[in-house]
């Protein structure tokens, strides 16, 4: 018995039981039914937790109150409504008057600005090398060079934490000793730790920039390039006046996406030193996570997360609107 004959029989039964006008409406929207399971599942896990985060941010939720009647309790809505009580804006006021929050937000923006600048410079640089006519076998090197992108993030980040180990023969220490400096306790110093985050983030994210830039570079008009050469424009002149204008849009687009990724960077500070030393380098998402799970203040943690979402949302809207990047998605 083939599957389609099962389908036929189900259809007969369906036609016998469902009245015609209902069937007509269903027929009209039937393709939507194919989309709905995925859409509902995704919305359930994307928007419901977000809404619940908003709810938690207005309550005094902590493990003792939220899980009052134990897991699976049936009071309220599947036990989601525990003994926590509304506290209005108290969490937000507490968070906004807490200097560690502002420190965390400042560090996060600094991280975003520095890492995006580094990623763009480094990514475009590599892409220029990897499309240069002088370099033979560049296609193969391109496929090797994006390897960091393929590796599981937890794998690469733990390796980098080993590189910045304060042990004498950690790779970073070997490098500085080789260069004639004395060894460092990388992750115990605030700015050293910050710099090591930056380097790691750059290493993790350059393949994305390289891929986008390479495909943009390949679209640069050869005729324009040749014309510039004939006119006697030097290499940097050509780069600035021919290459840059044609790759600006895709690179901007990639930069904004990777800025959003940097803003929500969690694993690097978490794995390296839990945002230390002394919580100085807690990027914003880690800050919310620590408040919630280390200090058991779920309400305050949720308030921090929502503030982060508001900031990054505002940034994305401005960036997309200013850069008119939606056109990039519209395609030809």
């Amino acid at each position, binding site marked *: 018995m083939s599957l*389609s004959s099962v389908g036929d029989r189900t259809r007969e039964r369906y036609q016998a039981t469902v009245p015609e006008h209902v069937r007509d409406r269903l027929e009209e929207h039937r393709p939507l039914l194919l989309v709905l399971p995925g859409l509902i599942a995704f919305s359930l896990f994307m928007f419901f937790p977000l809404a619940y985060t908003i709810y938690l941010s207005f309550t005094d939720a902590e493990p003792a109150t939220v899980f009052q009647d134990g897991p699976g309790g049936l009071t309220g809505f599947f036990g989601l409504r525990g003994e926590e009580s509304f506290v209005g804006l108290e969490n937000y006021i507490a968070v906004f008057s807490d200097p560690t929050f502002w420190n965390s937000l400042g560090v996060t923006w600094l991280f975003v600005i520095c890492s995006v600048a580094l990623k763009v410079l480094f990514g475009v640089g590599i892409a220029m090398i990897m499309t240069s006519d002088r370099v033979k076998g560049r296609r193969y090197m391109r496929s090797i060079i994006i390897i960091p992108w393929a590796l599981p993030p937890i794998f690469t980040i733990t390796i980098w934490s080993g590189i910045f180990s304060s042990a004498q023969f950690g790779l970073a220490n070997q490098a500085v000793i080789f260069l004639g400096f004395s060894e460092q306790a990388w992750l115990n110093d605030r700015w050293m730790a910050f710099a090591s985050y930056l380097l790691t983030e750059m290493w993790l994210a350059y393949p994305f920039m390289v891929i986008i830039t390479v495909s943009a570079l390949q679209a640069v008009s050869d005729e324009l390039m040749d014309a510039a050469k004939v006119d006697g424009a030097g290499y940097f002149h050509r780069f600035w006046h021919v290459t840059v204008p044609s790759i600006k849009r895709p690179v901007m687009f990639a930069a904004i996406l990777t800025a959003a990724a940097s803003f929500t960077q969690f694993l690097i500070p978490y794995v390296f030193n839990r945002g230390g030393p002394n919580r100085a380098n807690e990027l914003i998402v880690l800050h919310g996570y620590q408040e919630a799970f280390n200090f058991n203040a779920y309400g305050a943690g949720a308030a921090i997360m929502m503030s982060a979402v508001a900031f990054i949302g505002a940034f994305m809207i401005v960036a997309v609107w200013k850069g008119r990047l939606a056109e990039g998605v519209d395609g030809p």
Partner: protein
Amino acid sequence: MTVREWFSNRIRNDVRTVVQKPAEWREDVAYTVDGMRRGTIDPLDVAKTVLATLATIVFVFVLLIPVYWIFIIALQGEGATLYSTDSAGLIPSQFDPAAFVWVIGDIAIPGAIVGITIPFTDVEFYISWPRIVFLDASNYVDSTSDFPRYFRNSMFISFWTVVFAMLMIVPAAYAFSRREFAGRMKLLYGYILFTQVGAGLGIASVIALYTIFSSMGVTNNRLVLSFYYAAMAVPFNTWLLKTYMDSIPTSLEEAAIMDGASPFRVAWEVVLPLAKPGIATIFIFIFLVGWMEFIIAQLILSPEHYTLPVGLFSLIDEHNVPWGQFSAFALVYASPVVFIYMFAQRYIEDGFSFGGTKG
């Protein structure tokens, strides 16, 4: 063409290209040398090219030193450490596969006794076989890692993630590609947007997610975690498969409809078989979601259900990291992913052309 043929063709082509390359290079070099001798090619130009290429190779190597370094440490056995000159350099001082043996443990077919009863008779017989050991880890190392257990957990979660996700994604991609319905373009744009911001929002709502899972008593439930991964995989993979289906010509379907096939049969017997390569691609992507995710997994799973990434991280003690063991574990965990990516790279690059939403 079956998926297997399609894949084996691809692999065969890749291998052939790799094997033939050296010969091509030799010809190129011979041509260049010949040209220089006859004076048609400028030696200065050649020198520049050679230097640029060599410099780039060195640069690529320097860039990938972290991976090379971890490989070298893993090759030097269990005791490799960063606290002595012996094992921490870039040139290995010794080779010792013990760390890998520690990761994998015994390689053996477990012994078992299987009883078979023939129904309606009293005949019963037993088949038994002893444990067949190919590699006995205890000959080389004192203890073995929990890698096999983590591996089983990861496989379990990834398997169910793929099942759940396929059930949701394949019909949806078909509808997006071949049907017209209210809000189709809006939904598609929404999906594309969430391929980019979804991960960030997911991390931001991690507190609520944990609270919800705990309140409903489903922490440490691997199936729920699989379903969560599957749901999060929906936007990107639906979009990817839809783009693939768009590239399948509609003429075959039209022919099938002319022959009187029902819409269901057209979808099942015409479109799906043609979309197999696309389905294989999203299979890989979805599988890797469960294979690589760390944050949610470490938050809700207990040690007996740890997946590979969580297991890897649990090897790290704040003050004393067993570098040899850690490196070997990490390499065994990550290597399949690298091979898959190298193979799938052409699709990843294609996926970044933003023409995918038209129509």
